[in-house]
């Protein structure tokens, strides 16, 4: 009981567990523990006594978020390209869904649902790249990559043969296809070693 009480007391002055979980997902590699230790020490010894719990937690969250670009920069070129393609397709799908709702042409409900469904894949990819996914979740990304290539290629062919060629649709379909291909390559490489998608370099 006494040991349990000490553990609870030690925990009370520590950074919040959910944010610690987040930083442990964002930071991987040899020096992740040294960085987490530095932030933990600063939180316990300086920030928490000076600012109080709520403001100290906000400070800790800000530091964790400031480490996200570092996590991205430490990834390989292919994964950075995949992240860029994912963010582009995610933004494009959201924009298309909003435009469908604003213009409300016939069949807009189905098309917006399609846009949102497609957006789920780049969203999952971004999450997988920033927070490191488990092998089980990776299987879903394989399926998502194949679906993206199928949807992208089909839209590309359809748009090219259409009498009303649309530049933006062409751009998005190319981006979706490229993203699907990059996902397959990244997943293929991550399967070769012990690294998961978003971990290590490509």
């Amino acid at each position: 009981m006494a040991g349990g009480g000490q553990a609870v007391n030690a925990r009370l002055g520590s950074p919040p567990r959910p944010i610690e979980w987040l930083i442990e997902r964002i930071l991987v590699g040899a020096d992740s523990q040294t960085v987490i230790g530095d932030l933990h020490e600063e939180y316990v010894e300086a920030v928490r006594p000076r600012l109080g719990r709520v403001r100290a937690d906000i400070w800790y969250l800000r530091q964790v978020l400031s480490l996200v670009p570092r996590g991205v920069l430490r990834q390989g070129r292919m994964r950075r390209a995949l992240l860029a393609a994912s963010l582009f397709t995610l933004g494009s799908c959201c924009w298309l869904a909003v435009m469908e709702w604003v213009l409300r042409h016939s069949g807009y409900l189905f098309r917006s649902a399609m846009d949102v469904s497609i957006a789920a894949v780049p969203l999952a990819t971004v999450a997988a790249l920033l927070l490191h996914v488990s092998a089980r979740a990776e299987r879903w990304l394989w399926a998502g990559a194949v679906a993206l290539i199928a949807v992208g290629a089909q839209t590309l062919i359809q748009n090219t043969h259409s009498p009303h060629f649309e530049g933006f649709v062409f751009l998005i379909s190319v981006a979706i296809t490229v993203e699907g291909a990059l996902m397959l390559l990244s997943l293929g490489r991550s399967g070769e070693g012990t690294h998961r998608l978003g971990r290590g370099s490509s």
Partner: protein
Amino acid sequence: MVASDIRSGLSSAFEAVIDFCPTHTHNVGMAEFLGTFEQAVLLAIMRLRGDAYGRMILHVVMNSLKRTVSAGAVYTTLDRLESRGLVHSRVDEGTPARGGRPRRYYSVAAAGARALNESHKTLSEMWSGVQWPVEVKR
């Protein structure tokens, strides 16, 4: 404060992109180019001597630049300096205050000292003949 975090994060990310770019020609028969933030980090390591680990470096950099600096900006810069061979690091044991996690101590490498000297020399040459503080006559 959040805006300054984003700014410093973007600035270090930008510097890393410039570093990554193959057309960038630092250290090619000319003085090693050091940004202001890189100089601040290197000088912080020199000031701290044997006690230069992430948390302390962050404190000294904030004091010398007199602004809030995010941890991400400091660690990104340390990574870059280490990959350029300007700093060395070693891992040491942790303390209970850090939940037993290890500390990474940094020291300035010979190339880092040379780069700092070059930067100081370049800056001094740029300022030669100009009286400080600079005043504009109306």
